[in-house]
């Protein structure tokens, strides 16, 4: 594949190179009031690209970034039917962790945590990754057993993860109710110190800026209407802005993945469920770690602005609707007050929903499909953001080399036909 050869960067002369951000630059522009240059450029759609990536979320943008950076493939278009980072990449609760249940999952998500750790320096963009620790609470013996199982799998893979008792939980998070007289007393927790939260928009923008800088084109409001194939090979893409010739299409479309796969006749083992989240008004920082309770179906963290960000389980029926519901906020409030009674007078600011493409085994679907030139990076369910950098890196490697990287070989589409499922439900934050 001669993908690396052609590189037609059509930057407008006025846009110039994006500024390298630095403290000195902020000071200088503070004094001179000089405008910051645009972080990425608008392009006209070309007639042909070496690679077309559908979906300008963190997965699509990271894939484009690593295609350009690691493999020198820059004749790439990232298409999005709406705006960049407007799907799950802008709707998640921004929790990063690698304390999964299967060895394949742990190795994969740990690579992602490692990439996130170096991402701000790599992108020259402050992604505000705060590794403040991640606690998965257990309220019954069954949960304690699962936590012990996960801790042992994690340790074998070299991950900092262990089971702690209720007293230690209370020391780490003093505001948690660890008393014995509650409806669901906290028995202990899986403690994962490298886990934390990140500013998800900054990750999206940083990848977009980095990819754009190397010649990748990001096309927003460009909907893919159909994908052309000839003799089982991809030949082009019809979009709302015109036709593109290409031999390689990467679908990174999360909740909408089935609609894209249907265009080439590849049936996916996916069901799309909405997942709701909510945020409170900002208060002084009091919550030092990410708290997850599977039994109470809630997770909470405090942003650097002081808002509490809540998430829960997916809505109980398949839907592409991104409207919030009253049941969600009622259940959320009931459960969070069991854990942290002192926030009873906090007000919710807003709630929203994102779409999750749930797979039967809660592991993603990555790699080749029966249609040559159509590769997928989908099936993320509720784990998508955690995997952004590593899926970008491995999918870029897959596209550039034509071989499935070892790290994602367990996540192929044919595992469902062969019955080689990678059961990751036990590592879900809450029982979806």
């Amino acid at each position: 594949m001669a993908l690396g050869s052609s590189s037609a960067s059509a930057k407008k002369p006025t846009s110039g190179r994006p500024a390298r951000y630095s403290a000195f630059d902020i000071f200088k522009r503070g004094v001179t009031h000089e405008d910051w240059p645009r972080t990425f450029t608008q392009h006209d759609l070309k007639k042909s690209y070496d690679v077309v990536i559908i979906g300008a979320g963190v997965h699509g943008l990271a894939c484009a970034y690593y295609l350009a950076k690691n493999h020198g493939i820059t004749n790439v278009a990232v298409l999005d039917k709406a705006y960049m980072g407007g799907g799950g990449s802008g709707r998640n609760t921004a929790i990063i962790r690698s304390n999964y249940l299967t060895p394949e999952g742990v190795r994969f998500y740990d690579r992602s945590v490692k990439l996130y750790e170096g991402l701000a320096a790599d992108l020259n963009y402050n992604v505000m990754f705060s590794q403040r620790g991640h606690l998965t609470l257990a309220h019954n013996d069954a949960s304690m057993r699962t936590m012990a199982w996960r801790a042992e799998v994690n340790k074998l893979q070299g991950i900092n993860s262990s089971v702690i008792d209720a007293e230690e939980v209370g020391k780490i998070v003093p505001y948690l109710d660890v008393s014995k007289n509650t409806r669901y007393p906290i028995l202990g927790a899986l403690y994962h110190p490298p886990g934390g939260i990140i500013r998800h928009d900054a990750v999206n923008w940083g990848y977009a800026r980095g990819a754009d800088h190397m010649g990748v084109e990001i096309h927003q409001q460009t909907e893919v209407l159909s994908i052309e194939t000839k003799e089982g090979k991809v030949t082009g893409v019809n979009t709302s802005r015109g036709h593109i010739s290409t031999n390689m299409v990467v679908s990174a479309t999360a909740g909408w993945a089935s609609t894209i796969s249907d265009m080439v006749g590849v049936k996916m083992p996916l069901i799309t469920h909405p997942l709701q989240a909510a945020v409170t008004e900002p208060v002084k920082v009091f919550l030092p770690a990410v708290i997850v309770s599977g039994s109470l179906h809630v997770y909470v963290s405090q942003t650097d602005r002081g808002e509490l960000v809540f998430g829960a389980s997916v809505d109980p029926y398949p839907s592409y609707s991104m409207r919030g519901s009253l049941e969600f906020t009622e259940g959320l409030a009931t459960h969070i007050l069991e854990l942290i009674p002192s926030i009873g007078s906090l007000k919710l600011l807003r709630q929203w929903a994102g779409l999750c493409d749930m797979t039967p085994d809660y592991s993603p679907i990555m790699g080749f499909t029966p249609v040559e030139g159509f590769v997928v990076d989908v099936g993320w369910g509720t784990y998508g953001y955690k995997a952004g950098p590593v899926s970008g890196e491995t999918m870029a490697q897959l596209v550039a080399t034509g071989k499935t990287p070892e790290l994602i070989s367990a996540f192929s589409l044919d595992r469902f036909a062969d019955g080689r499922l990678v059961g990751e439900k036990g590592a879900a934050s809450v029982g979806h």
Partner: protein
Amino acid sequence: MIIIDCPHCGPRNSTEFRHAGEAGHKRPVATTDPAEWRYYLYVHDNPMGWTRETWFHGSGCRKFFSAERNTVTNEFRWIAPFGQGPAHTEESGA
């Protein structure tokens, strides 16, 4: 919150119901090969738009019923006792 008009009990909150899957998702014969079984178990249409499906009124009459719902707007076009919906409509995937 969506209100579902149960054909036996009348309009109730969706929390009383359980989504029981796509209509017409038929179990293959017991002698089929493993690949077909797995296709039946795992692969779904997951349509964006109108779809026929089965619901279960778990906190009411405890009966299954048929419906056609738009998965984007959560609007119901019709709801009928199990298997009694209108014949095939053009926009529905079923």
